[in-house]
């Protein structure tokens, strides 16, 4: 005679909640240790790969310069993300509401995606009033497409039975959009947002590289390139680490928003009742 295992003890919310913080942290420590060990063991020169400790020191020392640059980059990032989300959502709506518009515009959205910023940055600089606007335009172009793609897929994935329901009750297109398609597209939208968040950040950096302002009011990208040019590799890494942490933070933020919106109803965020 064997009994089934006793019912699971009530969940341990604290451990559950700490896990998402502790695990990445543990890995972080491990990565840092390996990195440190590698640099020491193979006597890697700081101008090739500086050790973590040196990078940390540089980060503290150059905090003034770097944090200022970070703020500039963040401003571009969030402006670009905001514009891309707004633009892509609007376009996705347009393209799913009208078959013709979808057919007509998607190729051009693709073209926008595959055009190398580096190549068209000069053109943008010529036609756009100032560098700030040029950088924003570039960042926007990069961020735009993944959000558009996901939003379009989401708007198209609405349950046909619910569409029937709305049709039956004489819902206007706007109502169908607001009360059905947009809520139903959320899981896709948030996936797009999660990609878009990081992409906006990197796009801000790339845009700065290409269309970039330089000198005093410039962002992280410029600082990174400059450090590279000056072979100030510890600072380069400090800049990269700042960038990465910001990226993780942005990702975490978008994931949080997504979780809050989906947790009551969508499989991807719902805890299984077991």
């Amino acid at each position, binding site marked *: 005679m064997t009994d089934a295992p006793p019912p699971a003890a009530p969940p341990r919310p604290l451990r559950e909640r700490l896990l998402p913080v502790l695990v990445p942290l543990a890995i972080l420590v491990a990565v840092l240790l390996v990195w440190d060990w590698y640099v020491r063991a193979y006597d890697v*020169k*700081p*101008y*090739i790969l500086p050790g973590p400790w040196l990078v940390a020191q540089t980060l503290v020392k150059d905090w003034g*310069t770097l944090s200022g640059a970070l703020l500039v980059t963040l401003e571009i990032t969030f402006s670009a993300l905001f514009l891309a989300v707004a633009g892509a959502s609007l376009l996705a709506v347009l393209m799913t509401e009208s078959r013709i518009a979808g057919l007509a515009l998607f190729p051009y959205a693709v073209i926008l995606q595959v055009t190398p910023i*580096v190549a068209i*940055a*000069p*053109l943008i*600089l*010529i036609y756009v009033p100032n560098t700030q606007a040029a950088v924003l335009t570039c960042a926007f172009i990069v961020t735009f497409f993944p959000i558009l793609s996901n939003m379009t897929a989401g708007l198209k994935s609405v349950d046909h039975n619910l569409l029937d329901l709305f049709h039956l009750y004489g819902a206007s297109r706007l109502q169908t959009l607001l009360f059905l398609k947009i809520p139903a597209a959320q899981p896709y939208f948030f996936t797009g947002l999660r990609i878009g968040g990081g992409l906006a950040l990197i796009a801000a950096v790339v845009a700065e*590289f*290409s*269309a*970039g302002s*330089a*000198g*005093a009011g410039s962002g992280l990208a*410029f600082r990174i*390139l*400059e450090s*590279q*040019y*000056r*072979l100030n*590799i510890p600072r*380069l890494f400090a800049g990269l680490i700042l960038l990465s942490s910001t990226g993780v933070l942005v990702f975490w933020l978008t994931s949080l928003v997504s979780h809050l919106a989906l947790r009551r109803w969508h499989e991807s965020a719902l805890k299984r009742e077991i």
Partner: protein
Amino acid sequence: LDEVSFGTNWLAQAEHGGFYQAVADGTYEKYGLKVTIRQGGPQAANRSLLIAGQIDFYMGGNMLESFDAVKNGVPTVTVSAIFQKDPQIIMAHPDQGIDAFADLAKLPTIFLGKDLFITGFQWMKQAYPGFKDEQYKPYTFNPAPFIADPQSAQQGYLTSEPFEVERQAGWKPKIFLLADQGFDTYSTTIEAQQKLVDEKPDLVQRFVDASAIGWYNYLYGDNKAANALIKTDNPEMTDEQIAFSIAKMKEYGIVESAEALTGGIGCMTDAHHKSFYDKMVAAAVVDASVDVTKAYTLKFVCKGVGLDVKKALGG
């Protein structure tokens, strides 16, 4: 005052010193100009802005850019050449038995920027047998891969990379100035739109003259104010680096050699242009159909402007 904008091709540094000097000490103003310097930088698009007419003068890197402009019908001309020699170098590790320029061909790797690859390197292949495309690896303005690989060479700017490499790696790289090997282009030129040259020759002349005077003052006079301007534009710039650059420019005769000694800073000659052009045609970097004389005008230079200033400063 005439408002004039001047776009440089890199971040503010000692190599742009004369222009900043002329701003700082009021030389431009004396010549009736109100000059705004727009510094360039990695991938900045100041050249496009000149072509699009959004700035008045642009600091050209070498004459090839002007040849290309002629070939493609872009109406810009070089009106002055501050550097008699292009400070472009190839450097190698000191302990690899690289004694002559031609020895570089033995190395498996040369890190080059794309622009130098499609220009200078093509010429190297033609002028020095043994160089081949397989040696090329892209240089991303980070010398670490070069330092890490003793069997490699890398492009550089006479006044910058060797300084950084020495500071970081602790050894002095072997340096080969391309200009001394025959790549004899002018550099740090002043380019303007043909329209400006035709319609406001007087303004162009004033800018060229004031710039030359600025340069004399920068090299031989009190350049503190100019350096302060440079450091505002580019906060990373150090006095140490500036001093190193000025010393190198003087040592290699970057600014003052050949005709510049008699004609003044900025002087250019047809012969010098033709010499470089012919080499580039031979290396198939430039099309033989280009009318080289359209790339520049000698109208504004070799007038000895500023030689008096130099003398006054005891240079």
